[in-house]
């Protein structure tokens, strides 16, 4: 879906050919989400079928270019105007891994969390270095925004991992307390006698 909307949004700026669309997409997003040319042409064919773009002949170098239709421009305006839906969360390997790990007997979840946090922090350091390089170049603004997004997501993950560590530790304490309470009736004859 995003590929379709992105190509359409770039075509709204003027006619372009497939490889050009791919290059522009990667330049703006820093190749964070690589596109292959096949994907671009398949998507363009679908957009053409749906009447959102039309073939616009060849440019001087012989590239087959596409031009957006009025209906296509309207679709772009609608895309920008509407918030991105958040109702279907993307599959998150880390959340799934922890949800499964927490029930595995003998698995050191705290060590898993700490190791993950170190790895996420390393990624955060890498993004920050890239940001530092991109910050002085006004043309890099789109890429900088993508990097900011990665930075904030990684930071949220670190905070979530801090929280997981505390929650898991507390749950372990509770389990111990409950186990002790369950053993208590056996000790109660003494308490009965005292009473």
């Amino acid at each position, binding site marked *: 879906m995003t590929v379709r909307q992105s190509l359409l949004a770039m075509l709204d700026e003027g006619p372009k050919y497939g490889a050009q669309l791919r290059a522009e997409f990667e330049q703006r997003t820093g190749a964070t989400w690589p596109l292959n040319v096949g994907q671009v042409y398949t998507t363009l064919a679908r957009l053409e079928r749906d009447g959102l773009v039309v073939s616009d002949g060849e440019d001087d170098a012989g590239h087959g270019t596409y031009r957006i239709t009025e209906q296509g421009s309207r679709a772009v305006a609608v895309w920008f105007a509407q918030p991105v839906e958040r109702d279907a969360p993307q599959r998150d390997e880390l959340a799934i891994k922890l949800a499964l790990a927490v029930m595995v007997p*003998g*698995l*050191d979840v705290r*060590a*898993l969390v*700490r*190791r993950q*946090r*170190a790895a*996420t*922090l*390393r990624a*955060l*350091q890498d*993004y*920050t270095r890239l940001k*530092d390089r991109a*910050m002085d170049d006004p043309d890099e603004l789109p890429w900088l925004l993508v990097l900011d997004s990665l*930075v*904030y997501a*990684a*930071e949220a993950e*670190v*905070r979530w991992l*801090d929280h997981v560590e505390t929650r898991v530790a507390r749950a372990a304490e509770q389990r111990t307390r409950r186990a002790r309470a369950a053993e208590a009736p056996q000790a109660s004859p003494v308490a009965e006698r005292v009473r």
Partner: protein
Amino acid sequence: MSTPRAGAPVLELRGVSRVHGAGPGAVTALAGVALDVPPGQLVAVMGPSGSGKSTLLHLAGGLDSPTSGEVLVEGTPLSGLSRKALARLRRRSVGYVFQDFNLVPALTAVENVALPLELDGVRVREAQRSAQSALEELEVGELADRYPDDVSGGQRQRIAIARALVGPRRLVLADEPTGALDSETGEQVLRLLRRRVDAGASAVLVTHEARHAAWADRVVFLADGRLVDESARVDDPSVLLS
């Protein structure tokens, strides 16, 4: 002071502990902390509040003394220094940036920044020239004659950082330096700290935000007064399962 060996740590903490109080009510703020910060390195210290982050910074800057262990700045053990020599080392080698700025309200920006140099015997005119260039480096040169209460929070923090960086200081200690700033100004401040470190200084940055710690070369964690360096890679995956 003797010239330090090239590449030798600018800051060294050797088995540093700090216990407040004595007897059963004693509180251990730091327990056996070891940390080396070589030139050109920015180390971030993370950890929950009460984990000993600020204590570590105070000890590193000679504002507090350890109960046991040793703190060395540019190879000099702080415990061996007279009060006067310690004050001199603090002025010459160590710059501080605190959450609450600590600027003197009765002095202008340039006077605030020049203060540590003047206290160290640098002539007023020369100190003010260095101060002015430090302010310019932080893009607040035009505020030189303004008083701290007359400028915004972000500007005040830049002035405080200029004061920490003025002159040839090689160790910068920063305690949540972006606390009062908006996210973009905060980022600029960290970037300036980064530049200073890239130019050869060493710095310790205390923060509870991973996004800020990410400007560092190394991130260490304090938990209950103990240091955990999580950046060390573990190669054997079987250690997770007991």
